[in-house]
């Protein structure tokens, strides 16, 4: 039972709730970047100290931690954002997937015919990320300017 002294819960205006929502999503971004940075530093330090002697179990434990962290952060993010944001993410991922297939298939075919150097997995991955980011930023700009 609520006593007369208990202050009633503050009813936020829509704009205040929007600010709260923006803060929540910004926190998810900060956590994601922070976790990625920590993981990168941990892998770098472990690699430098142990090099090839990193026990296989430790390596697989790190990979498992990375997978769990990625899944948890993505679920948290997708539950926090609205359907327009989810749609933009899906379109950007779709563009990235198409770019990946086209670049990889094109490069491998060209290399098989001696028209290009041996495909570089990291270069293909980097190109995929770049195309995905360009698609995402393009969608966001279109929404902001439109």
């Amino acid at each position: 039972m609520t006593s007369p002294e208990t202050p009633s819960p503050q009813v936020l205006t829509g704009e205040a709730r929007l600010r709260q929502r923006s803060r929540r999503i910004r926190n998810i971004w900060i956590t994601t970047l922070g976790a990625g940075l920590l993981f990168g530093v941990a892998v770098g330090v472990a690699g430098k100290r142990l090099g090839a002697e990193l026990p296989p179990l430790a390596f697989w434990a790190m990979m498992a931690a990375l997978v769990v962290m990625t899944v948890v952060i993505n679920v948290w993010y997708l539950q926090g954002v609205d359907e327009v944001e989810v749609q933009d993410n899906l379109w950007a991922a779709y563009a990235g997937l198409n770019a990946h297939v086209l670049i990889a298939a094109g490069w491998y075919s060209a290399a098989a015919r001696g028209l290009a150097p041996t495909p570089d997995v990291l270069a293909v991955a980097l190109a995929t990320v770049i195309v995905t980011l360009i698609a995402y930023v393009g969608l966001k700009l279109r929404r902001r300017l439109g």
Partner: protein
Amino acid sequence: MNNRLRLLRAERGWSQAELAGRIDVSRQAVNAIETGKHDPSLSLAFRIAREFGLPIEQVFDGGEA
């Protein structure tokens, strides 16, 4: 899909940000729906109609924008 979001908002003196906070989406989402660049899901459309206190068919209609 046509909608009367801009008009209903104006009647209540709500900004896009105010409506966005009330229905728990971003301001860009409200803008995208208002300008016909995004058709809301059924659940979001119902949430919007509920926020305005109107039946869904008085906020949205199925015609092309």
